[in-house]
């Protein structure tokens, strides 16, 4: 019964997020944080930040944090249900709208909508960065690592894997 309750909650919460995650899963990190750290206590702030780092440093789409949250909340069933919740509504929408979108390619409102959404999307991802930094950047060293990673990732096309290796090595060397 309780498990069903959790699964239902996971599905509904992520289904809602699925439909507002404009700009992808990284745009709704603050809302995921609110859900699983503040509201349901599925993990601590530190665990959230660490697990997000794990999902970023492993291969695959950015949406994998959803599987981690589901796993922490209700095991394998939780991971699967949370992922379905996050992917199904937006996929149904995509599947049905793609043809329509193609037909309206020359309508003037199409680029207008795209251009209107762009800054909000960028702002959402920046807000996600701020939230994660609150958990991860606890002293001057971590702030410096974040700043360095921001610059390198913005300026170069270096594979992020190398940046993670560098960041992890720095952490191990400086704090040990």
């Amino acid at each position, binding site marked *: 019964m309780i498990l069903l309750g959790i699964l239902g909650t996971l599905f509904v919460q992520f289904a809602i997020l699925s439909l*507002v*995650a404009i700009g992808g899963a*990284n745009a709704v990190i*603050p809302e995921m944080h609110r859900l699983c750290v503040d509201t349901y206590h599925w993990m601590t702030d530190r665990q959230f930040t*660490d697990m*997000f*780092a*794990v*999902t*970023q440093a492993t*291969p*695959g*789409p950015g949406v994998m944090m959803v*599987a981690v949250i589901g*796993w922490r909340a209700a095991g394998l069933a939780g*991971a699967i249900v949370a992922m379905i919740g*996050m992917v199904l509504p*937006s*996929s149904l929408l*995509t*599947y049905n*709208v*793609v*043809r329509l979108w*193609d*037909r309206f*390619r*020359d309508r003037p*409102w199409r*680029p207008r909508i*795209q*251009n*209107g*959404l*762009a*800054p*909000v999307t*960028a*702002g959402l991802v*920046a*807000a*996600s*960065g701020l939230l*994660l930094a609150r958990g*991860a*950047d606890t002293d001057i060293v971590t702030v410096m*690592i*974040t700043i360095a*990673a*921001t*610059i390198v990732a*913005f300026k170069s096309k270096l594979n*992020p894997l190398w*940046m*993670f290796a560098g*960041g*992890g090595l720095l*952490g191990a060397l*400086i*704090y040990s």
Partner: protein
Amino acid sequence: MDIAEIDDATTAERRRLGLVDPSLTDLFMGFLSVAITAFGGVMPIARRMLIERRRWISSDEFNELLAFCQFLPGPNIGNMSIAIGGRFHGPLGALVACLGLMAAPCAIVIVLTTLYEHFSDVQIIRHVFIGVAATACGIIFATAAKMAQSALKRRMGHGLLFIVVTIITIGILRWELVLTLVALLPLSVLAFGKQPWLFKPAPKADPQRTGAGGGMP
């Protein structure tokens, strides 16, 4: 319905460009290969797989699809797998492509979460994580900066205003996301539409596109 008509034009065009129609297995394996080789950002890898290695779509089609998938809510690359899978094999194709993309990374991430739960107390791992987490923040900030850059290019004042408002409301004041977006998105679109003389249209469509679109009434 003139969709069939467009499809005919598209088929001829695809033949001319030497593009390949994937089977269901191809869809699964293609997106699986993207999923397990993409660190940090999936889109560049997906682009290479779709356009260069497997030649399912042209580069123009990819850009169109990318804009579309970024415009719609949900995981962008997930939306792309749905659109491409659906285009070649209907609902089943969409499902297969999406599963190919999501299943393996899910399994990997769950194994790592379990490992993390067991070893997060080990001193050296703690320290590595402090560095890796700080790096992850930087990579997110860089993504945001790139998105902001392209948003500002379209219209500076409008872009700046809505980027800052979004960061303050969602990132700092931490307003409820859904309600805030319901208010913010229409405002941003309306504000952008207000001064059409400032609006520069996107670079003109390529001939292939115009040709296909010309068939429409």
